[in-house]
């Protein structure tokens, strides 16, 4: 993964994007177009989920086709307490993280014993299991889901009931998640995960019990996504099994690949592209999903670098000696492991 420096073109574009995100509520307040705030909130929540998936998929090489389970578990951990009148976010959110981590631990312990296509399918199957589990729980709305009447409360310290408050909560959460993942991927632990993706057999021969490291990575990713799920429940005021439908897991993978696997910001870019494309295409035709599917196939066939690869490519086109020099310096830098 690239180190993001303030002087690199990537660093600049990220700074600009962040500033725009931070200022968006002001624009919305002036123009009254709350639609954009909703769009950006959803995009950032899915971005967080995609970042967590990327930790196992991009960095760890574990192709999980069941990551939406954690979105659902996290959301239900907000919705079910709320159903019983418990609105305390300091209970709901830790619960969401803990339940997701626990689910990841139990299913991961089994899934990670398998390899390749077995892993893809078994992660998918476990998510489907949770899906049907919630579908058959009539108490919590079953198929139809459940409305959350109030958002999480933080003892008066934080107010996320309003769209703007929630928006900033999500934005800060996203930044925190990005920073956390950035540190993890560069830590000793992250190196082991990266190594196990690159060559598991070699890592075992060196002396790593790769299974344990992968399991921990799987749990971390699950916990982060559970957190994103708790935000999603808060954001939509609603929980339903549909959140963890297997197509939702597929969409998360698409975001990661669209953005560029194994990169820090890629999944966020991918989620942004995904959400915006969805919005845009659905205004063109009611058959927009066809275009979407075709685009997905085209991305796989012709554009595997993802958006991040495209940003790199675009950065190459920017003239100017300082930028080229910085870029070359970054290229040569020894801590760069993947170009």
């Amino acid at each position, binding site marked *: 993964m690239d180190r993001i420096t303030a002087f690199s073109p990537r660093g600049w574009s990220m700074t600009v994007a962040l500033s725009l995100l931070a200022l968006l509520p002001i624009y919305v307040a002036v123009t009254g177009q709350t639609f954009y705030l909703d769009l950006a909130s959803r995009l950032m929540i899915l971005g967080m989920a995609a970042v967590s998936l990327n930790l196992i998929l991009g960095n760890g090489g574990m192709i999980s086709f069941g990551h939406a389970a954690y979105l659902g578990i996290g959301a239900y951990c907000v919705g079910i307490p709320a159903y019983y009148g418990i609105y305390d976010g300091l209970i709901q959110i830790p619960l969401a993280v803990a339940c997701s981590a626990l689910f990841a631990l139990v299913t991961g312990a089994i899934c990670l014993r398998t390899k390749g296509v077995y892993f893809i399918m078994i992660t998918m199957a476990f998510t489907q299991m949770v899906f049907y589990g919630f579908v058959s729980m009539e108490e919590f709305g079953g198929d139809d889901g459940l409305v959350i009447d109030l958002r999480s409360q933080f003892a008066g310290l934080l107010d996320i009931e309003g769209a703007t408050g929630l928006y900033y909560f999500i934005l800060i959460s996203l930044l925190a998640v990005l920073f956390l993942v950035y540190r993890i991927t560069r830590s000793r632990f992250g190196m*082991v995960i990266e190594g196990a993706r690159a060559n598991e057999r070699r890592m075992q021969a060196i002396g790593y019990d790769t299974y344990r490291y992968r399991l921990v990575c799987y749990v971390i990713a699950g916990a982060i996504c559970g957190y994103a799920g708790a935000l999603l429940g808060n954001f939509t005021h609603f929980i339903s099994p549909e959140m963890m439908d297997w197509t939702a897991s597929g969409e998360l993978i698409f975001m990661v690949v669209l953005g560029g696997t194994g990169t820090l910001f890629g999944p966020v870019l991918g989620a942004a592209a995904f959400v915006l494309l969805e919005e845009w295409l659905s205004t063109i035709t009611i058959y927009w999903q066809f275009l979407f599917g075709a685009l997905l196939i085209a991305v796989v066939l012709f554009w595997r670098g993802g958006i991040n690869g495209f940003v790199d490519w675009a950065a190459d086109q920017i003239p100017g000696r300082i930028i080229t020099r910085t870029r070359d310096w970054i290229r040569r830098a020894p801590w760069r492991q993947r170009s």
Partner: protein
Amino acid sequence: MAPALLTVENLNKSFGGIAATDHVDLIVEAGEIHAVIGPNGAGKTTLVAQLSGELRPDGGEIKFVGQNITPLAAHARAHLGIARTFQITNLMLDMTVRDNVALAVQAYAGHSFRFWADARCEERLVEPAMAALARVGLADRAGSIARAMSHGEHRQLEIAIALATEPRLLLLDEPMAGMGVEEAQSMVAFLDGLKGEKTMLLVEHDMDAVFALADRITVLVHGKVIASGAPDEIRGDAAVRRAYLGDEGPLSNEESG
């Protein structure tokens, strides 16, 4: 008397009824270079895989410094001090040369459940890694992506990774495989330089290299040990010569010379 570094007793492994390892006994004493030779398909790589823990034997026992390690997985054996190189280059190709070696150092420098500090800035990891690279002559390639290097350099990197784990026993599976004459010669010189410092079990096709390096040689044919002894004994062994007849007779030039 101190136990031998590695003792293999009555090791068996068969695939679909064909014995790849057939009642093999083997002793590697500390400090020696013990070569295992044999014609193609003799079960040399299968033997290494069982010693390193990637393959479970069907029967028999492997002892390391007197401890029975037969039930241990590969990573656990590595922690006891058994390092291996692979016949077919087996590296983290997408990572830099330095990261490849640093990961090997990291496996022994405390635990790896550290999630925050930047591993590439840890002197404890970087310095030994650079030392191991310098030792095999790859210090100036530390920043390259492993994939971009030549075959010979890959072989050197294999050795550097194995050395970085500070092993007590090196299992070298055909370290000269696919190398040109010059590269092979410098590898022989390098291994010769390690002699006395590291105990090695050397599986090799190149007979010149084997006879130049080995203190003792074990000959494997169809999974069976047919001879074991000093190079001179092996050279004169009738059974060994018979086994190699028709297999280009790699011992013939030794005889005439």
